[in-house]
């Protein structure tokens, strides 16, 4: 039985062993470039497909981003890989490898810029006050966490956004989740999993920004 288990685990993990050499590297910093890889169909949640925002959700709306900040408790890393064999009750982490985070502000900036594809005119933080008619908005990155589970990568990202509307400030805290198959255990796959979580958040943020614009910006 013992040897059967050993052979089983060996065969199961063989694809990782023979994968290209660019595996998770604790010295390489994540690119922190946002890329939306959800696709047109949207995310699956509890057997349902979440519809993506309308392509013109940001039409005639100028988002004046007043701040983009990284408020994570830990900016050095963003989770990582935990090697464990979940076969017996006594299992515990045998080895871990953290994934090194890059610049969170750069990440949020590229995520904010991506809102242009919904028709928003996005003004990044600048010294000038937002012009009348613009929707002032602030973005804070609160948490970025990616972890391994079997043959999958999972992530959780938390972002806070504030919109200054005519009827008062609107504060939102968004949680996004990324799930993908861990093909090569490469740094880029960890980044992609984090980006899936951000993309889920942006879908909600786009709807809130659009509604705030329609309700009337403060300025």
């Amino acid at each position, binding site marked *: 039985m013992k040897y059967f288990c050993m052979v089983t*685990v*060996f065969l199961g993990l063989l694809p990782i*062993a023979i994968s290209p050499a660019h595996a998770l590297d604790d010295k390489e910093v994540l690119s922190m470039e946002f890329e939306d890889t959800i696709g047109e169909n949207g995310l699956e949640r509890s057997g349902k497909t979440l519809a993506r925002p309308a392509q013109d959700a940001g039409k005639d709306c100028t988002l004046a981003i007043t701040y983009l900040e990284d408020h994570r408790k830990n900016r050095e890393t963003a989770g990582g890989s935990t*090697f464990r064999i979940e076969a*017996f009750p006594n299992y*515990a982490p*045998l080895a871990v490898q953290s994934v090194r985070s890059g610049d969170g502000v750069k990440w949020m900036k590229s995520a904010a810029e991506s809102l242009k594809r919904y028709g928003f005119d996005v003004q990044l933080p600048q010294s000038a006050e937002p012009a009348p008619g613009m929707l002032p908005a602030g973005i804070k990155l609160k948490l970025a966490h990616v972890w391994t589970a*079997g043959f999958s990568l999972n992530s*959780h990202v938390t972002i806070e956004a504030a919109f200054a509307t005519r009827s008062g400030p609107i504060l939102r*805290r968004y949680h996004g989740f990324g799930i993908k198959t861990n093909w090569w255990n490469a740094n880029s796959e960890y980044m992609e999993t984090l980006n899936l979580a951000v993309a889920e958040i942006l879908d909600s943020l786009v709807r809130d920004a659009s509604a705030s614009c329609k309700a009337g910006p403060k300025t």
Partner: protein
Amino acid sequence: MSRLDSVSRLLAIAGACALLSACASTVHKPLSDASRNNISQLEMRVVVLQEGPIFSARPPGVAVAAGGGLIPALIDASVQKSRQESLVSKVHSVLEAVHDYDFREEYSSNLSTALQNGFPLKVGKMSVVPSSLSREAADAAIAATKNGAGLLLLISYYELEPNLSALTIRTSASLWSEGNPQKAYSNHLIFQATSGSLDLDRNTELWASENGQRLREQSLLGIRETLKMLVLDLGMKEVVEKPNSPSANTPTEKFSFYMAGLPQQLEGTLLASEPGRALVRDKTGALFSLPR
């Protein structure tokens, strides 16, 4: 671990398979009295990689059932992805309830307290960090454990079971001294707090209610119990076992333990108990703090 090429990864996985058999046997290497007496200055490093509680859907286990291979692994990944997609919409409220909770900070302050209250070794330096040690840094740190220095590495991992039926904190503890790459002490320390239900919706409500109070309380208890198990293990005097001695036939009991969200029975020796909780050593030497 740093970047591995294909050959070394193959060797690492072969080693892991050997470890699998070790999991079924013993995981406990007691600290000898001589080692304990030799260590006059210990560096304690706790690695907590994660930024929040981990929640992972139950693995389908197709790859194991099929005897391994790429296609069963892909089926596993696909099924697990689908299960995780369902799970994330449920755990959202739990994560929102504990969005400001800092497990590392809690660990650090409780560790400081534990070190001031009868810790069996003299600790000179202590840290709770989110980053792993590279292989080179780990080798150098182990090599530097000379002239009474020691290195105690804890790797802690906390997760909510697939149906949120339990919070489990798993810690591997390793101690090196005298510049010896062989561990002077090692063990697995496992804490579990249960919700009392197998129903995901009910459990979600339980962990999320009152600003995640139960999850915060049980996480704190888990850190304290983990450190209690560590203190007990490191302070345990050496016992020379004789084949027919009474201690070789210590009576065992069965305790309830959740694996992948399902209740199972764990056989072990009761070491200590207090209202509602038992400290148990299983046949592999691992320590468990379990509700009872």
